[in-house]
């Protein structure tokens, strides 16, 4: 069991201490099962505990259905925007030397390090009734907070670094020689991007997009602050789960949670498949 991957050591290699090895592996298995696997299985057990009918009834509840739709809509808006932003940022940082380059890199990573709820509150203060741009928006009759634009904005904030973080190291490792070669062969800027740059980063880009999408779908903290949690209007799936839970609709909460978890598992499989392709 200890010799997978590389070839087995020669016959004269000292005997490994099997006892220690087994204890460590056993400990890792127990911890993974206890902390990850069991709670995950419990969600499905509870969701399907009352039978398929009850599960379907709860998922097809208008509030939950609307939440699923809204969450999907947010992801569909956020992921392409962040892909474009991520490519642009990674390209600028990888290919050019300009003052403030390091600062830009740090700035883009801020959403990784600060709590999402802080992001939510910042947007609340910025766009709120007494905020910096709130009154101006109200005069124009634009509704940002407690509506789709607010949810999209905070989700964009929270997921901003994902694509850039995946694409940048690849671009830096590849260097710009292939692009320079394309230039000398007469290709225009757009041709270089579409035929050389993009194909070279496509797996990293998709991988970043998958991570970004997973986070966009699952974000709770920041969205809860700016959505206003209006039933049937601004409830995303994670918010809906909490609402159902607080309403003591345990089966409903677990049914919604099961849907979200399934989404996450699909993402996980996609991610594993892409990691295999990237090698």
């Amino acid at each position: 069991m200890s010799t997978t991957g590389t070839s087995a050591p020669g016959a004269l290699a000292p005997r490994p201490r099997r006892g220690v090895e087994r204890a460590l592996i056993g400990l890792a298995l127990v911890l993974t099962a206890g902390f990850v696997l069991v709670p995950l299985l419990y969600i499905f057990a509870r969701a399907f505990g009352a039978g398929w009918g009850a599960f379907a009834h709860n998922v097809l509840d208008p509030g939950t259905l609307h939440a699923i739709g809204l969450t999907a809509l947010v992801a569909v808006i956020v992921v392409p925007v962040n892909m474009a932003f991520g490519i642009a940022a990674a390209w600028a940082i990888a290919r050019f030397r300009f003052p403030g380059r390091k600062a830009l890199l740090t700035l883009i990573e801020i959403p990784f390090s600060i709590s999402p709820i802080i992001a939510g509150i910042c947007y609340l203060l910025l766009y709120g009734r007494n905020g910096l741009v709130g009154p101006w928006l109200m005069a124009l009759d634009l509704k940002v907070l407690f509506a789709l634009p607010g949810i999209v904005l905070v989700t964009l904030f929270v997921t901003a670094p994902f694509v850039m973080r995946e694409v940048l190291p690849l671009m830096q490792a590849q260097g710009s020689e292939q692009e320079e070669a394309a230039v000398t062969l007469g290709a225009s800027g757009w041709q270089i991007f579409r035929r050389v740059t993009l194909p070279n980063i496509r797996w990293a880009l998709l991988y970043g997009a998958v991570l970004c999408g997973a986070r966009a779908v699952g974000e709770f903290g920041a969205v809860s602050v700016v959505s206003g949690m209006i039933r049937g209007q601004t409830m995303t799936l994670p918010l809906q789960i909490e609402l159902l839970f607080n309403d003591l609709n345990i089966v409903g909460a677990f049914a919604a949670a099961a849907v979200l978890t399934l989404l996450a598992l699909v993402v996980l499989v996609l991610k594993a498949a892409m990691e295999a392709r990237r090698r």
Partner: protein
Amino acid sequence: MSMTIAHMSRRFGATEVLRGIDLTVARGELVALLGPSGSGKTTLLKIIAGLDWPDAGTLEVNGEDWLPKRAQERRIGFVFQHYALFAHMTVAENIAFGLTVLPRATRPSPRQIADKVQELLGFLQIPQLAGRYPAELSGGQRQRVALGRAMAISPQLLLLDEPFGALDAQVRRDLRRWLREVLVQAGTTTVFVTHDQEEAFELADRVVVMGAGRIEQTGSPEEIHDHPASPFVARFLGMTVELPVTLRAGRAEAPGIDASALARVAMADGAATLFLRPSDITPVPDPEGRFTIRTIASTGAMLRLLLTDGAGGTEVEIEIPRRLAPAGLAEGGHVRLRPEAGRLFARTEPLSQSAAGAFATAHDPDAGRQTALSKEFTR
């Protein structure tokens, strides 16, 4: 296609990479830019390609100013040191790239492009590789593909950056002969960059030796090999033995050295430095000889002798074919030195090598200053 570069200079921050380059390349010529790393040769190549721009100077091709032209408009073929093949395209797609990005009006039909790719694959002797991806090729095969991709656009000028830099020694030697044939056959004006003199000499019609952003010497391989124009070129071309001598009536004299095989030179009497290749010195066994054989090492075909000067402790390295080695060479034995070919430069500056300096002071009180015959140099 002919190219003229005049007074070109380029600096990166505080570093002057090019300091006044003047160079003319004639139509159909095969020119090597030879120099150590940091001599500015790659920068010069990139400026010709339009991937970099100078701070001053001119670049004209067929009398036309090329500096305002973008790389895309110059129609040059550039072969990168690491080839920069498009990893996600097959060999055929790589070679076709330059034709497929042409504006629709001037783009050949897919059929014509395919024919051109086939023709090039045949010319480069790699038709069997058409469907492979770059990751599946050996270094030598990649180089051929890179060359094919550059030649597909029928370039006015072919530029190669260290064409053999990424290959191992055996492949290098084989490809060198092949590349020379291909380039001569194609007849395209070619400039390539290398730090390997053997490569430059074997491939090029004309070699341009660069050092520290300047052109040190231009000439045929034989001229440069036999008559390096400056101590820099002499050292760079393997004249690593520097002996302080005194010139008298055009002949070099120094104790323990028999320079009678060297031709007389038209230089004023005085202190000079004799630059020699280790393989151009014959050790003559002589019990009274000034040099002591410290070690003898054999590389099979060659013997490598390390000598020390009895008085000053200077070390001199000599290389002779083992089968031509005179009898009586043994570690601890004494020899005279007979230089067979070498280059003399008058001396005005301190010898750069401390060991040589020690040797100099041992017998020549005036030594310690050295000057280049034709060009001033600093190191």
